């Protein structure tokens, strides 16, 4: 298996005159955690939107596991094993937690009710939400809704798991649980993590890719990025791990 699971070439998104992403070339290593960082408005969500197919690209290529998926609609890309969590929580507010996760599980497990049930309970346990399984998702706290969003990705056993600011709005202890969870997935799952919390980035990421103003600014190991002067400048002169 190639070491690179995902590659983009010249990926560009224009909104009117504004280029939210401009010629982004990117490589993602299999089985590793890669953090995508950059200031607000840098184009991180736009980028993963184009990778997952949610946002149509203006031009450029997305190659997943050797296959050019640029022309595939979002659901076909997801079916290839890409799971996507939204930056703005997007759960089924009117349905129970269990049903939320079951919908995510059923796409693969289909009519096998038993398998769906087992899988869903397993994931609920994994994210410590089993005791709330029968509540409506809309009644959960914001933090729990974020965790549910992650659980809906997990239950798909994705090959590539894209998380858009998953720790936003989580309490300190929940952030720790998240870091632990990510570490258990490493190896089987490739993780692309958009993250503002530099502490989380430094604790989880094997590689970091920096976007600024819609363009790739730098990429490398956390150590390399920490020392990169262009990155420091983009973060207004502050040290990135501050």
């Amino acid at each position: 298996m190639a070491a690179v699971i995902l590659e983009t070439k010249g990926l560009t998104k224009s909104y009117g005159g504004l280029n939210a992403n401009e010629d982004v070339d990117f490589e993602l290593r299999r089985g590793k955690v890669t953090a995508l960082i950059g200031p607000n408005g840098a184009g991180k969500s736009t980028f993963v939107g184009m990778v997952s197919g949610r946002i149509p690209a203006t031009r450029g290529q997305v190659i997943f596991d050797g296959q050019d998926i640029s022309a595939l609609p979002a659901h076909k890309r997801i079916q290839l094993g890409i799971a996507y969590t939204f930056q703005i929580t997007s759960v089924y507010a009117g349905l129970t937690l269990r049903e939320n996760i079951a919908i995510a599980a059923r796409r693969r497990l289909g009519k096998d009710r038993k398998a769906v049930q087992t899988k869903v309970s397993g994931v609920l346990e994994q994210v410590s939400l089993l005791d709330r399984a029968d509540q409506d998702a809309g009644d959960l706290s914001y933090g729990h809704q974020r965790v549910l969003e992650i659980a809906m990705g997990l239950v798909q056993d994705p090959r590539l798991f894209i998380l858009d600011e998953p720790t936003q709005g989580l309490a300190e202890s929940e952030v720790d649980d998240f870091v632990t969870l990510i570490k258990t997935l490493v190896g089987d799952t490739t993780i692309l993590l958009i993250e503002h919390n530099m502490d989380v980035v430094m604790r989880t990421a094997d590689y970091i890719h920096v976007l600024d103003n819609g363009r790739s600014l730098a990429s490398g190991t956390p150590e390399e990025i920490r020392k990169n002067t262009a990155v420091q400048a983009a973060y207004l002169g502050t040290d990135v791990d501050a």
Partner: protein
Amino acid sequence: MSDTKRSHLLHLGVIAVLFALFFVLPAYHVGNLSRIMVLAVYAMGFNLLFGYTGLLSLGHALFFATGMYGLGMAMNSFGIAAEPALLIGLICAVVMAAVVGFLALRTSGVAFMIVTLMFAQAGYLTILYFGAYTRGDEGFVIPQPDRMIAGIDITGETARYFAALILFAVVFLLIAHVVRSPFGRTLVAIRENEERTRMLGYDTDRHKLKAVILSGTISGLAGAAYALLFGYAGATFATVQYSIFPLLWVLLGGAGTTLGPIIGVAFMFYLIDLSSSVTQAYMLIAGVVLVLLTLFAPQGLAGELRRRVMRWLP
């Protein structure tokens, strides 16, 4: 008891009650109930799309009328027997729903409502335009001797009641099955959050098209059965009014519940029946009751029941 078991018992129970009512009710109400059950099939078709998938069509009369004329004209213009005519009505409805669904689903929200409304209007005008064959507004009667199914004359009150009950039961159980199946749960997911569902890897366009086709087919089946059981087909059934009726029934009974359609149709039928026996201004009474229900039971009767006491109600 598991929710699945409860659900089976509930649906079989409803059918058993309808069966028993035939022996208990006076003839007048038996006649009403035959009509209510057939219209409830229409409402169930509509509910699958509106209540479960979240797509509001304002043109379902087109599907009802397609089934009705498919059967009616096959019998009257071509002298085809009732059973194959029923099949023809059904096929016409499938084709119509597939075409309308394919085109209308390029839009969503208000545009979908307008497009379906326009299709239905076009259908209505087509019926009038070909008045030489369809008899337009006046409609036509399907002669009594032709209305036989499997050698049984279904024009009598008893046979008609049981024909309506069988039709109702089949569709009722089918819907109960569908909405609990992975397909039905996906429709609900689309209703609740289409974007999320797409990003979980579901082909939402395909699901919506299937929902329109199934919904339109069931509505068409109701139209064909109505023509067959009550012996009449007319352009009235293709008017906007007949597109609005299922919406009212389903809202009153409870959108997105399996019981909602039959409850809604029965409720409205008897609301108009009772208030018109009291006063000339019966639409006023009916209107006030409808407004009160909308205010105090916004999820419809069965929806309220689910919210307050029976959360497992499918």
